[in-house]
C-alpha cells in the first residue's frame, strides 16, 4: 500500500507533498517506539510498536494518497459531476482552501506587524511573545472574510436554483473504473472477513 502510494504520488508529480506527510508521522513513530521499548508503562515491545505504527499508516494512507494525487479543483469538479450539491461541494472546497488562506493571512499580518516594529525573530521566548499580536488579527480577519465571501458568492448567483453547468468533464477510463470497483470489492471482502473473525485480533 505504501509502495502504491509512493508510485501514485511520483506519477502525479506530488512526491514532495507525500514526503511532507511522511515526515509528519515521524514524531508519532518515534513516540510509539519510545513508549513500547523504553517505558515500563508501555511495555509492548517492538512488535506492538510496529503494529501501532502500521495501524496509523493504514489510517492516514488513504487520505495521503488522495491529496498526493488529486488536485482539489478536480475533486470538487468530479463530485459535482456525480450529483453532489453545489453547497456541499463549496463547503468541502472552502475547507480544503482554509489552511492555505490562513497561512497567507498570517504572512500578511506578520509583515504588517513587523512594519510596526514587532520582533518575531530571535530566541523562542521572543518568538512566543511575537505570536500574541498575530493571533487576534488572523482569527478575526478570517471570520470577517467568511461574511465577505458569502456576499461575493451571492453576487455571482451561487444561490440560483437547478444544476450548475460543468465547464469540463474529467476523463474516466475503463481502467480507472475497474480499479475503483476492485478496491470497493476488496474493502467489502475485508470487512466481511473481519466480521467473520478470519483476520485481525
Amino acid at each position: 500500500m505504501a509502495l502504491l502510494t509512493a508510485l501514485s504520488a511520483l506519477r502525479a508529480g506530488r512526491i514532495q507533498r507525500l514526503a511532507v506527510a511522511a515526515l509528519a508521522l515521524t514524531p508519532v513513530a518515534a513516540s510509539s517506539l519510545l513508549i513500547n521499548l523504553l517505558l515500563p508503562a508501555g511495555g509492548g515491545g517492538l512488535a506492538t510498536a510496529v503494529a501501532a505504527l502500521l495501524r496509523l499508516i493504514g489510517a492516514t494512507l488513504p487520505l495521503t494518497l488522495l491529496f498526493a494525487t488529486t488536485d482539489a479543483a478536480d475533486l470538487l469538479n468530479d463530485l459535482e459531476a456525480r450529483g453532489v450539491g453545489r453547497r456541499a461541494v463549496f463547503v468541502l472546497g472552502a475547507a480544503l482552501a482554509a489552511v492555505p488562506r490562513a497561512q497567507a493571512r498570517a504572512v500578511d499580518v506578520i509583515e504588517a506587524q513587523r512594519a510596526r516594529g514587532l520582533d518575531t525573530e530571535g530566541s523562542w521566548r521572543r518568538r512566543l511573545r511575537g505570536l500574541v499580536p498575530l493571533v487576534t488579527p488572523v482569527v478575526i480577519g478570517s471570520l470577517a472574510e467568511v461574511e465577505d465571501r458569502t456576499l461575493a458568492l451571492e453576487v455571482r448567483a451561487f444561490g440560483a436554483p437547478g444544476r450548475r453547468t460543468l465547464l469540463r468533464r474529467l476523463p474516466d477510463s475503463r481502467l480507472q473504473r475497474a480499479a475503483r470497483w476492485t478496491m470497493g470489492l476488496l474493502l467489502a471482502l475485508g470487512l466481511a472477513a473481519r466480521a467473520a473473525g478470519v483476520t485481525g485480533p
Partner: protein
Amino acid sequence: MIVLDQASYRYPGTSTWALPTTSLELRPGEVVGVTGANERGKTTLCMVAAGLAPVTIGGELRGRVLVDGRPTVELAGYELAQRCGVLFDNPTVQLTGLHRIVYEEVAFGPCNLGLPLAEVHERTQAALRILAVEHLAGRNPGHLSGGETQLVALAGLLAVRPGHLVLDEPTSRLDPERSLQVADAIARVAGAGVGVLLTAHDEELLARVCGQVIEL
C-alpha cells in the same frame, strides 16, 4: 435603471442609520460617482443599491430601492445578481479560491446560472475581452497582482451580465498605473450599456469616468 427614492438603511442590531436618506438614479450606460468622508455610508450605499442590504444581510430599509422597476426586497439573491453586480473594495475575497485558472473563475457565475455550455464560454470570453484581460485566462487566480485581481473579479461579475454595476472604491488598493487600467475598464463597461455606480476618494478617477458625482 436603479432608483433610490428617499432610501435610508441601518444594519441589523444597530440603532444608527448607516445610510442617511438618499435619492439617486442610475441609468443604463451612465457612470455615477459617489464621494464623501469615511463613515458617511458609501459602502452601505453600494450594498443597498445592489439589494444585498437588506435582502442578504438583513437590517432595516426605509424608502424604496428599485432595480429595473422592481423593489430589491422582492427579489432573490440570484435574481439581484443578474440585475446588479457588486465589486467590493477587497477583490481577493471576491474570487472563489476554488479554481485553478482565471477562465474557470470568470465562468463561475454563468455556470451557477446553469446556462448552456456554449453560452457560458461566450459570456466568459466576452467578459475577459471587454476588460482586455484575455491574456490572464490561463493564469492561476491566486498569483495575480492587485490590479489584475481587481479586473478578474470585475470580469467575473460581468460574465453574469448584470445591467448595472456597483463598484466600491475599486482603485483604493492600486497604484496610479493600475488605477488607470481600472478606469479604462469602467469606461468600456459603461460604453457597453452597463450603468455604473462608483464610490471613490480618488477625484481624478471620478473626474475621468463619471458623468455625475454625488457627495454623501
